């Protein structure tokens, strides 16, 4: 309702995503939603609640517990002209469909010499923060960003939750959307877009001059909080939200480093071989002479995510860690 109108409305990340799905289902009869418990249950995080009633079981399709089969079915349906939106409950379970994502979705266009684009959207939850322990909390989007042939999105704001799906569906290639589980209840104002939403550019969420804080997804809120704290100490931090993890917006990263000359990268993935490592390497390659301090990274501790609240908090990047890293870079 309101979220698709022309006025500013109060909504949540979850509702914004649902509204995006509703709009897609309404405006294009090739679109259908498929996944475990997306229908009757309303989606394991409640994103698709009510869509079954509105669009029926053909287009809001509950699947058996067969990640490989229904992701592969999404690929096949996309090849045959449909525009499936496949939901995988969490990134952890996507590993059971990794074969289909990597060996089919990402490769078919190339292996077929350009004959077979796969216009498929796969959505899944990622990330920790809800004491779900070591099989429901990891951030593996950096792995997916490793794969040529797919686009990887991480909507971090209500606006992006609402508006990234349409361009993702318009993309002729597979698009993976990672929704951080801690974001669903985030509420805020949603204004109609002032410019066309594109999937190629990072966003400056807060302009600054002293240091670049580069992040995405679930870490954006913590990073903005860190920027607030730094502002109180007269350190002007620029917050870059990558938004698209593949392909990376190199120009935005380079431009920000050229303004601030100091960088902290915040990534909920494990540090080793992480997306943060990739961003850091690109800065070393492209902006080396702009740097006034070594690049800092704030990532998750290299442990399987623990259950106990205090341990989980200690394992995750926190605002205080970001502030401390910024101090190391600035001092």
């Amino acid at each position, binding site marked *: 309702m309101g979220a698709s109108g022309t006025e500013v409305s109060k909504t949540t990340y979850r509702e914004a995503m649902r509204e995006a799905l509703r709009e897609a289902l309404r405006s294009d009869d090739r679109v259908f939603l498929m996944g475990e418990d997306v229908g009757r249950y309303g989606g394991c995080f409640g994103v698709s609640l009510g869509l079954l009633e509105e669009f029926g079981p053909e287009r809001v399709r509950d699947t058996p517990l067969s990640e490989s089969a229904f992701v592969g079915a999404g*690929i*096949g349906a996309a090849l045959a*002209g*449909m525009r499936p939106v496949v939901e995988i409950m969490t990134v952890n379970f996507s590993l059971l469909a990794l074969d289909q994502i990597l060996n089919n979705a990402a490769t078919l266009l190339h292996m077929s010499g350009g*004959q077979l684009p796969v216009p498929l959207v796969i959505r899944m939850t990622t990330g920790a923060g809800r004491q779900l322990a070591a099989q429901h909390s990891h951030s593996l989007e950096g792995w997916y960003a490793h794969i040529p042939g797919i686009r990887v999105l991480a909507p971090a704001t209500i606006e992006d939750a609402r508006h990234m799906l349409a361009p993702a569906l318009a993309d*002729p*290639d597979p698009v993976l959307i990672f929704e951080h589980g801690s974001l669903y209840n985030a509420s805020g104002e949603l204004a109609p877009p002032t410019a066309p939403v594109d999937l190629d550019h990072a966003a400056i969420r807060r302009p600054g001059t002293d240091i670049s804080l580069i992040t995405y997804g679930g870490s954006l809120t913590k990073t903005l909080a860190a920027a607030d704290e730094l502002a109180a100490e007269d350190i002007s931090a620029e917050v870059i939200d990558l938004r698209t993890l593949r392909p990376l917006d190199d120009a935005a990263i380079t431009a920000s480093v050229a303004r601030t000359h100091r960088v902290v990268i915040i990534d909920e993935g494990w540090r080793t071989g992480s997306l943060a490592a990739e961003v850091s390497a690109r800065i070393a390659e492209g902006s080396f002479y702009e740097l006034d301090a070594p690049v800092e990274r704030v990532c998750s501790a290299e442990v399987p995510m623990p259950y106990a609240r205090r341990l989980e908090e200690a394992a995750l990047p926190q605002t205080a860690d970001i502030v401390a890293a910024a101090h190391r870079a600035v001092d």
Partner: protein
Amino acid sequence: MSVARSSRTRKDPARPKSGKKTATSKPSASTESPARQPSTGHRTDLLEAMLRIRRFEERCVELYSATKIRGFVHLYIGEEAVAVGINEALTPEDAVVSTYREHGHALARGIPAESVMAEMYGKATGCSGGHGGSMHLFDASRRFYGGSAIVAGGLPLAAGLALADRMRAQPRVTCCFFGDGAFAEGEFHETANLAALWGLPLLLVCENNLYAMGTALAREHAQTDLAMRAASYGMPAWAVDGMDVEAVEQAARRAVEGIRAGTGPHFLELRTYRFRAHSMYDPDRYRDKAEIEQWKVRDPINRLTDRMRENGEPVEKELARIEQRITDEIDHAVAAAEQAPEEPVENLLRHVTSSPAEAVS
């Protein structure tokens, strides 16, 4: 690309047949006895289609030894009756999903030998532009969706093609080939359940050649009656003599009729045998030479010509004519592949994504 491809389709032997095929397709009464009285012409067509695959692959062996073709090459020799018999029941509107042992499926489907050979050579004129090779043959214009070298990896995708048809009430069938080894993979079982649950128009064609690489059927399956196990998913499933092209055709017609009538997925277990090693790399140490010889007695090509002779059909004359035509066709395919341009290295990053700009990131 596909436009260019169809324009260089010099001749397309298997394709024109499919037009009249639907007209001759009559409901079959049972599997035991052929319901349609096969005409001499039809048997000759079947013979030619099988011989084309046999001779094409024999030439591939030579070209492999001559290092013109590289990579993994999996030969279909001995199993030709399966691809040819199944293809008889399909129309150009139907879809085919195949494996890495796919030259037979591709040729039976009507992809020109020239286009397949160029792909084996890794040339730009190949049916996958040289990006795929022997294991990844594609032809979107013939709804031939490859060419998957992940054992069982094509099955979920085939279910999706069938799902799209079901959702849009398209009276088409998707045919998916896979082996006895694939039957042990989770992706097979997930797909069988999903397809039966949703009543998808999917023909599951299990080529049971008794081996998954070097592992014999009984060493990979606790229960080796694969058709029976497939039936447990609630779909019609039965075993067929995969060395008898007419038996395969008849079973395929019956299954496809069932699927088109809306009774959901069907499973066929084709009992067959590969006469050659698993791939060009395989020293074939895991089976008895005597076993191979026993199966060669049932060679699907000889089986058909014997039957034609028994029926007093003019086999020898036909054979000479067919062999000549196929030799010419393959000679031409090889010559064309030799001449064909390579994809320029500057195009390395093409077709990674649909937008060329993204290839850099």
